């Protein structure tokens, strides 16, 4: 049974200079215990799509989709009150900047306890016990004292652990992690990712990991969606994506990884820049930068083809001719 099913999700923002399409036709299908990584550059729309699911976008955003359902419930037409019962409890999200994502005026204990009180109706004692449990679960030493700490007294890594504790407090079925390690030290990054994966394992949660770090994707994800300029360009299982990337963008991204350029003089790059609001090409959005681009690529936008967890938006996918397997 599908936990989160999305078909053709688009998000348009009303701006001073007109309407801007930040997310264009995203499909995804997450089941229990899935680990899905969404990769892309900044501005590719990866965060916005998940924020749309959570209902956290500002009123200037217009969200449209053919299907956007969580456990069969339609998230598009749901009332605010019903939605508030789901998020924080069945679906949780953690964000990129843990230091500023916690309210500086309240203690850690207070902020974790809020979720427990709101969704599970626990009384004060039960909340305290559970909060300590959660802090231990996320690997925070001396949890009892930490309950009384204020966010500015915590380091980046600790803050993110607290955020994770808050997010899993009600044992959600789906956890969305939006670039959880980008703002942290490299040494802490690995710890946080390991924590997320082990929690996912223990609790049988589905995990959506939004990141631009291909190394993390390779190690943790089962499914990968690649996004470019708001569009979904490829989705594959992780092994397939890394061995036989089909979209030229994915191919170029992987080629640009330092690990893959051993023995080369120069690190490969992708020429050009991501199209902004004003200079979107008529055809495939990646065509100006694609080394395999042909005439039909520049004439029309390739549709997203494929089923389930195997999709591609390209007229001329990369041909690996037998390599890799």
């Amino acid at each position, binding site marked *: 049974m599908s936990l989160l099913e999305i078909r053709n999700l688009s998000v348009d923002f009303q701006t001073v200079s007109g309407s801007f399409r930040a997310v264009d036709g995203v499909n995804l299908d997450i089941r229990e215990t899935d680990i899905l990584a969404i990769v892309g550059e900044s501005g590719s729309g990866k965060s916005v799509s998940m924020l749309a699911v959570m209902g956290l976008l500002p009123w200037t955003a217009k969200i449209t989709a053919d299907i956007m359902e969580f456990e069969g419930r339609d998230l598009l037409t749901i009332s605010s009150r019903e939605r508030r019962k789901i*998020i*924080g409890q069945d679906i949780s999200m953690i964000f990129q*900047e843990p230091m500023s994502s916690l309210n500086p*005026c309240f203690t850690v204990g207070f902020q974790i306890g809020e979720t427990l009180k*709101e969704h599970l109706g626990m009384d004060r004692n039960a909340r305290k016990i559970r909060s300590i449990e959660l802090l231990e679960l996320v690997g925070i030493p001396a949890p009892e004292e930490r309950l009384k700490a204020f966010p*500015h007294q915590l380091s980046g890594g600790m803050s993110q652990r607290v955020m994770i504790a808050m997010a899993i407090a009600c044992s959600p079925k789906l956890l969305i992690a939006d670039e959880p390690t980008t703002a942290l030290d490299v040494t802490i990054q690995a710890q946080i990712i390991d924590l997320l994966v082990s929690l996912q394992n223990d609790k049988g949660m589905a995990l959506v990991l939004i990141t631009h770090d291909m190394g993390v994707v390779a190690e943790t994800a089962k499914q990968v969606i690649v996004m470019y300029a708001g569009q979904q360009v490829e989705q594959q299982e992780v092994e397939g994506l890394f061995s036989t990337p089909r979209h030229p963008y994915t191919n170029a991204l992987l080629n640009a990884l330092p690990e893959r350029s051993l023995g080369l003089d120069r690190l490969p790059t992708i020429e050009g820049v991501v199209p902004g609001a004003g200079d979107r090409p008529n055809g495939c959005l990646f065509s100006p930068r694609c080394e395999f681009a042909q005439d039909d690529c520049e004439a029309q936008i390739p549709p997203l083809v494929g089923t389930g967890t195997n999709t591609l938006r390209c007229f001329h996918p990369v041909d690996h001719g037998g390599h890799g397997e």
Partner: protein
Amino acid sequence: MFSFVIRRVALLVPIFFGVTLISFGFIRMLPGDPVAALAGERDMTPERHAEMMARLGLDKPAWEQYFDYVWKLLHGDFGTSVLTNRPVLDEFMELFPATLELGMAAMLLAIIIGLPIGIFAAVKRGTFYDQGLMGLSLVGYSMPIFWWGLLLIILFGGIWGLTPVSGRISFLFDVETVTGFLLIDSLLSGEEGAFASAVSHMILPTIVLGTIPLAIIARQTRSAMLEVLSEDYVRTARAKGLSPLRVYGLHALRNAMITVITVIGLQVGTLMAGAILTETIFSWPGIGKWIIFSVFSRDYYAVQGGLVLIAMMIMSVNLVVDILYGLINPRILHTSS
């Protein structure tokens, strides 16, 4: 936190000297003969002049006079009113409760109405409500207070005859002064209708005095809220599925309050200036009216003493606000060593 408080208190010292210097120098800077001004006499004979000069201590060198003056201040001697021959401090303390009562009522009004307006405007940013409310508050602080007061008097007192327009209570009542706060004293006195009279006399002055602080608080709350609403932790609060009331009223507001408290504290000076005008218009027997009267009647000791007392009062309130700010802002309260 402790060092924070110490530093704030330490700042008061130079300001205290500055203010005393101003009030000390004020009399010396008056046109004409300071002796005549302070003695209240004119055309004195040379002997009388010398006598008064010695009596007033004006024959000593200036710096010695200044130290005498400060010394007296620190002992609670703020001079003697030329008009009433009573110590200035006594006059001040007698009239201060009236101003305090009015000021507190005005501040209460400004906060109770201004704060929600600011929050509402921020949450409904860009809508008609937001623009309308902000437009109204702009009109509110573009108005001359004294005109606003007169206008209300004309409307409510004159044309519609709804409320009284001067004094604190109808002269029919003779209420004993217990606390100095007429609202409390009139209740204590048990006289029928006294409390109602006190309240009705307070309505117009409170509205007039409170209008500008209300407008400022509304605007500042709105902008503080807007800044806070775009912060990450508000997004986290919403992601936790908390109700809008909790998200805006608790998570957002708590942080916005840090700025707003400072703004509220700054209004004390505005209230004092406004009190001068409001009390004059409504014949409210407080220190605002007293100080104007003293300036006009050339009661220079009263002006001098009043100046120092008012400045000290404002400084104390600012200090309290600063400390409150330190208490509310956890970064200052819980500085990790």
